[in-house]
């Protein structure tokens, strides 16, 4: 039997928001998270680690987005997280001059 549609989103916007949050939002969070780490810690090592953890985290965030109750809410959370990580990247670029 196919999945029980009671738990799925049949209408367009909830579905659209979740799919975009999963693919795009998950990508933004995964990349900014790794770059934030890279701008404060050993840059080369973090970047090469990102070669595999970047994709794994991205996929994990995709799944979380699909589990969320509301697509827009998860978009909001992902945008806030990305902005926070961007702030860390900016601060790291400005103040962390060791590399």
């Amino acid at each position, binding site marked *: 039997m196919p999945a029980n549609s*009671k738990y799925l989103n049949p209408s367009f916007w909830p579905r659209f928001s979740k799919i975009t949050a999963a693919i795009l939002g998950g990508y933004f969070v995964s990349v900014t998270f790794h*770059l934030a780490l890279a701008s404060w810690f050993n840059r080369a090592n973090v970047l090469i*680690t990102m*070669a*595999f953890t970047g*994709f794994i985290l991205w996929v*994990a965030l995709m*799944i979380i987005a699909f589990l969320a109750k509301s697509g827009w809410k998860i978009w909001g959370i992902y945008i806030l997280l990305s902005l926070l990580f961007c702030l860390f990247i900016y601060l790291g670029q400005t103040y962390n001059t060791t590399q």
Partner: protein
Amino acid sequence: MNNRHYNIYFHTHTVSGIVISVILFVIFFAGSFSFFRDEIINWERSESTAITREIQLDYNDALQHLDKKYVLHGRNITISKPSVENRVAVFMAGTKDTLAPKKQQAGEFFYLDNKDYKTYTYEESYSLGELLYRLHFLAQIPYPTGYYLAGFTALFFLFAIITGVLLHWNKIVSNFYMFRPKEKLKTLWTDAHTALGMIGLPFQFVYAVTGAFFMIKLLIVAPAVATLYKGDQDKMYKELEYTDADYKFENKKLAYPFNINELVSKTKKNWENFEITRVFIQNYGDANMHVLVEGELLSNKKFTGIGKVVYRIADGKEIAKKDPIAHTSYLDVVKNVLYRIHFGDYGGYALKIISFLLGIITCFVIISGVMIWLVARQKNNMPEKKRRFNNAVVRIYLAICLSMYPITALAFIGSKIFYPLSQSNLYALYFGGWLLLAIFFIIKKNDAFTNKFCLISGSILGFLIPITNGIVSGNWFWTSFMQNKFQIFFIDVFWIFLAAITLYTAFHLKPKKAVA
């Protein structure tokens, strides 16, 4: 696990799986054969070669030869060995001498035979092995579409793997031992899908992650370059140790003679079990000529053991040295492991054969997933139109996927009889034949027939491969065994086994009545 989560995993697993299934099948099928790319290349050319990653070349002689043909002065020359065959790859940049004739300022890439120094362009060196290898990342579709398609397929494959495990979590142990082929069709497919999926899980996870990295790494590289390196891409690659140090061209003739063979053997003697894999010559014949000799330890001695020495020719000094035993950084390990575990080239033939089998098992997991999708939707309460649509989807999927087997076997025969088969003829044979066969099955509208026909015709063609080889080249598999032409022997015997297994399968399949 609550019901809501279960159904979400279920739905996302189904949708992501069904969307990528055909491409993923093509990738895994071609990829499985790619484990034997080097053997296939040697087999096609009726050549055999020492099984080693080390470059086997008289460098001095080869360079002298190339110097006559291309004039090497002022060029940077890289000699490497991308696959285990008699030919090495040579890349020469144009000379840095700005007064040199136009022809010398042009770069060149070709393959060089390590015995007779005959050169071959990429197209002249094209082979079925290369075709299958490149098909497994869809390189025949113009760049970047093919690469991105393959990369995102790998990414969503990772998604399907993880949602599949989550979905299956509660019954992960109990269902592993469950196999009910005699009950109804749906349980046959479900049990096979979950049990084989579990067996292949670590393997598939590795290939999904590394495959995504190879194909869509630009998605993580580009933002890193833009933010952390202020757009300076070279700086990043240098920091990640992907580029070699650059030495300036002084435009003065080198006053000393040099001997590359001696440098190579000197480097090799530094460490035990060290194999030379790349020689990079900068500013050939110039006062500031440098030679980098790079290699690695045998992978059964040390999994990541990359070493190199840079020599300055003018005074013969070693100006840089990387010890493969003492200096292995985290960077080296990650870069090496990501490739090695994907190529499966560190454990000899046993590992290659196991990898091939796991790859084919994955193909079966993909097909059984598609079949579950179909069978689960063949209920009487489904509208007739929808059921017909689903049937058509599966028919097309099976036609495309399963016809790969006879076509691959046919391409082996074709490339043997008509050796050397040019790239365009090979394309016409492989992709043209594939298209025709797929259309035939789609029109025929019988999935059981598609399956049986592909298995039987593939087996017959498979048995004909060693026979064709014997007739055309005289290398029957027993003679190639006795003459120690291992690659030729391996492909012949490999096909005999493969054809025997698929023939056995074809005759033991009993048509099953679909029970809803």
